[in-house]
């Protein structure tokens, strides 16, 4: 018999299923033999689910009914026009956990996701900053402005790429870029 402890169920539900097919799994606890403190979910029996693409689940949401609820179920066998609106809603809630609106209601999860992403980006920025201070080797001499100026002068003197490249763009008569 397959059993799923509620802690593992919690981590299963913490993943992010797609919005259209999100469903929550609710089942009955194993009636006898649970020595564990947490409730075990018997996945070998029909399970309840809230799904927009499967409106009628394999079992009602609540199947252990109180006295009053059983009386209401008896009343359901008669004409439905005799039920009050509250009774009708109660019958609905006995059979189903979430209504379609509740199933489809958007969550604020995107804020958590965005916040988490930005937080870790910021943390990464701090790490890079620390690295720049404590890990990077000294700046190469060849990247200093004066060195680069001397390098460019030498390249021009050598007529590097004189046809279409560097030296072609330098005006040797006027001593400036074309």
């Amino acid at each position, binding site marked *: 018999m397959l059993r799923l402890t509620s802690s593992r169920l919690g981590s299963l539900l913490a993943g992010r299923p797609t919005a259209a097919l999100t469903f929550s799994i609710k089942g009955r606890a194993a009636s006898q033999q649970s020595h564990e403190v947490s409730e075990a979910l018997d996945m070998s029996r029909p399970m309840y689910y809230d799904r*927009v*693409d*499967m*409106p*009628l*689940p*394999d079992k*009602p949401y609540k199947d252990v009914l109180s006295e009053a609820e059983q009386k209401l179920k008896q009343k*359901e*066998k008669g*004409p*439905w*026009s*005799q*039920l009050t*609106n509250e009774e*009708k*809603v109660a*019958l*609905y809630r*006995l*059979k*189903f956990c979430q*209504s*379609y*609106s*509740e199933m*489809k*209601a958007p969550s604020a999860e995107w804020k958590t996701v965005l916040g988490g992403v930005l937080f870790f980006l910021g943390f990464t920025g701090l790490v890079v900053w620390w690295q720049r201070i404590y890990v990077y080797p000294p700046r190469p001499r060849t990247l200093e402005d004066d060195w680069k100026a001397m390098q460019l002068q030498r390249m021009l003197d050598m007529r590097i790429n004189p046809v279409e490249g560097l030296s072609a763009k330098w005006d040797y008569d006027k001593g400036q870029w074309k």
Partner: protein
Amino acid sequence: EYDWFARLAYSHKLTQGDIEALLNAAVSFTPLASRCYSHGKVETEEEFDSRWVTYFSKPDIDAWELRKGMNTLIGYDLVPEPKILDSALRACRRLNDLASAIRILEAVKDKAGPHKEIYPYVIQELKPTLTELGISTPEELGIDKL
């Protein structure tokens, strides 16, 4: 290429428009219900509808069959016709299951998706049945709000 045809047509005093109409009619002689399948017959919409109406009309339909039927029907890429839903609602009545009847109406509204005019039309068509059986719509019960 169609020179001989043109000469024949003009000799019968047919205009250019007449000839075009004739040619169009000639190529559109395919029957309405046929498709370009390599095998098999396509079920018409009427056949589909009546099949489902018959399914839900079974006098001793059981709860499993109702659930199976509805879940399958909602799985199709269409909004069920009011007559199918009428049959399903009556099946709910035979099973003394008001909650499922309301659920079915919610599912229909969801199936319509962005086409917001479909659900009010369906409710309007089902109104006699809803009053007869005493089924309240989700809107009347406030279930459509959070």
